[in-house]
């Protein structure tokens, strides 16, 4: 596929591939509301994107570094000292992530000077470039430092620097995502009005979408990292009501699928309001208890996002989708075109819910046991997945 290299969220000519009932067709993406039925419920991730890329110096050596914040263990806005992060050496997004030089050797206790922010390396997370760090100062000082100094995480397929507003979806709320939940770029306020006029309901969750690429095969194999999410009471109620009336649940993006299905696996098929941490992977073996269809960016085989699509469509269908995307010149990455995949009736996976309910990290488990065995290819991918 062609890389979408301009940060336009809703280009007038955006395309949408629709896969439903074993048929594939192509429509202008602006037609998306017309694909929905009265009684359907559309759920999007309203996380705003943090300026999570911080340039600075490794104090012990004075060497330049780029720190990309990658996660934390909650969505709390008043406790934001601790993050996990990927550290790069000199350079910036203009160099492909895979080719970025390593940072100097990092050790617990090292100070990082990141513009107005000061952070301490707390520990290495089984990898020389993957760290846990702690910012110094109050929450207000850290927010001010991030807001004034941070830049959006960016990759080389977009040659010009992104502004923060490029990365916020029109519905962006709390700044807790590390990269944009970009399937939401599809939405605009007029589109929401059209949905509501059709008798379709719209709700949101907040899911701290993590980073999509680390430039390191070992680390990429761990993606997606654990991601905290919050389900508002109004959304949980809307899901219950929609299910009771046999409406469909339409997820805007992979993060919505991950959050809703994580909750459902924990609570015997119910989505409960509240904040939790999604730890599971979704793939060919996963049973989708909540979500009936997904609107997503186009994904390359081998990425964790592509794996997730296997829960919606069988390998044969996905392979036909790939061919169609290529043949029709679809664009990929976060500002690219989209797919809308309605779960086929026979996609009833067999993943044990107990693994998720017990909070066990079962990443790799379900993908490894998938029939098509694509897991290994994830390590060779050069192209990033997008949600």
């Amino acid at each position, binding site marked *: 596929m062609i890389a979408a290299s301009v940060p336009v969220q809703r280009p007038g000519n955006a395309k949408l591939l629709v896969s439903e009932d074993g048929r594939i067709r192509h429509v202008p993406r602006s037609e998306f509301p017309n694909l929905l039925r009265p009684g359907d419920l559309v759920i999007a991730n309203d996380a*705003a994107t943090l300026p999570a890329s911080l340039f600075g110096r490794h104090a012990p050596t004075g060497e330049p570094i780029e720190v990309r914040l990658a996660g934390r263990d909650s969505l709390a806005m008043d406790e934001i000292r601790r993050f996990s992060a990927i550290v790069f050496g000199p350079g910036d997004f203009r160099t492909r992530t895979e080719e970025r030089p390593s940072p100097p050797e990092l050790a617990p206790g090292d100070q990082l000077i990141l513009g107005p922010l000061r952070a301490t390396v707390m520990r290495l997370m089984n990898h020389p470039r993957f760290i846990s760090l702690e910012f110094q100062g109050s929450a207000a000082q850290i*927010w001010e430092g991030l807001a004034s100094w941070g830049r959006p995480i960016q990759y080389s397929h977009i040659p010009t620097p992104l502004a*923060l507003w490029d990365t916020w979806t029109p519905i962006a709320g*709390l*700044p807790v995502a590390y990269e944009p939940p970009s399937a939401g770029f599809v939405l605009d306020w007029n589109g929401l009005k059209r949905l*509501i006029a059709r008798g379709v309901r719209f709700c949101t969750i907040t899911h701290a979408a993590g980073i999509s690429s680390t430039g390191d095969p070992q680390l990429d194999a761990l993606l997606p990292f654990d991601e905290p999410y919050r389900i508002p*009471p109004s959304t949980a109620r809307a899901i219950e009501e929609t299910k009771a009336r046999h409406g469909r649940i339409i997820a805007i993006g992979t993060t919505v699928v991950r959050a809703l299905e994580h909750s459902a696996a924990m609570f015997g098929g119910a989505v409960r309001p509240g904040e939790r941490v999604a730890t599971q992977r979704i793939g060919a073996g996963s049973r989708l208890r909540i979500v009936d269809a997904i609107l997503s960016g186009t994904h390359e085989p081998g990425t964790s996002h592509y794996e997730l699509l296997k829960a919606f469509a069988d390998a044969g269908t996905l392979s036909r989708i790939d061919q169609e995307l290529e043949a029709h010149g679809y664009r990929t990455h976060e500002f690219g075109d989209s797919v809308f995949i309605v779960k086929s009736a026979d996609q009833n996976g067999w993943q044990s819910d107990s693994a998720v309910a017990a909070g066990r990290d079962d990443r790799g488990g379900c993908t490894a046991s998938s029939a098509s065995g694509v897991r290994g290819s994830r390590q060779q991918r050069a192209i990033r997945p997008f949600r």
Partner: protein
Amino acid sequence: MTDHARLRHPGTDNPLAGARVAITGGTSGLGLALVRELLNRWARVAFVARTRQNVERVSSTHADAHGIVGDVSKKEDIHPIAIQILGSLGGVDVLINNASALGPVPLALLADTDCEDFERVLATNVLGPFRLTKALLGALASSAREGRGAVVVNISSDAAINPYPRWGAYGASKAALHHLTRIWNEELSGQGIQFLPIDPGDMDTPMHAAAIPDADRSQLKRPEIAAAEIADAIAVALLHANRPLQTVVEEVAQ
């Protein structure tokens, strides 16, 4: 208790109790009076102003309010301001676009107004509120969906309606803001976000002193009175927001 007293009580009858309110231009005049009034009504308050020194001064005497340094007339400041509002309050239910520029002082005829001065007034009084509202719209809509209510107050003026000579830059900008507010309300009130243009009247503020230095201050409204009226209007709007009982119960339980 009278209705008026109930609206100011910390209990669940007071819709401002626990409401997350952001106020621009919060270190002087009406903005500062609003910070105080809303704190007194048990709201959680973040305020924005350009000068760090002023922000720190207000923060030092109002420890419960979160001070944010930023200039709403600058495009590059908007998202950093929005991040800090959302970071400090954990969301936003009420946005008060109060920060305002008067234009050239002494007040000038339009024909004598420099284009650059007019641009600056529009940037502060029209584009700033537009951009900040847009950046916070997702959070406001989320508040509305959760039954917390969502209100945007844009501080207007009678100069938005009446063509006062020498108030050209200010009056034209406030007319634009006033109309922006009304159109926004038409477009988004269906999704639970209410937009209120409020004319606080002629107040005894630094801005009024700059505009009319020889005004009889005893004839001017005290900003505290205007702030109380605006808080009342917000309280009524939040009551109209149709808060489901469930939300109130959850808040009380926290």
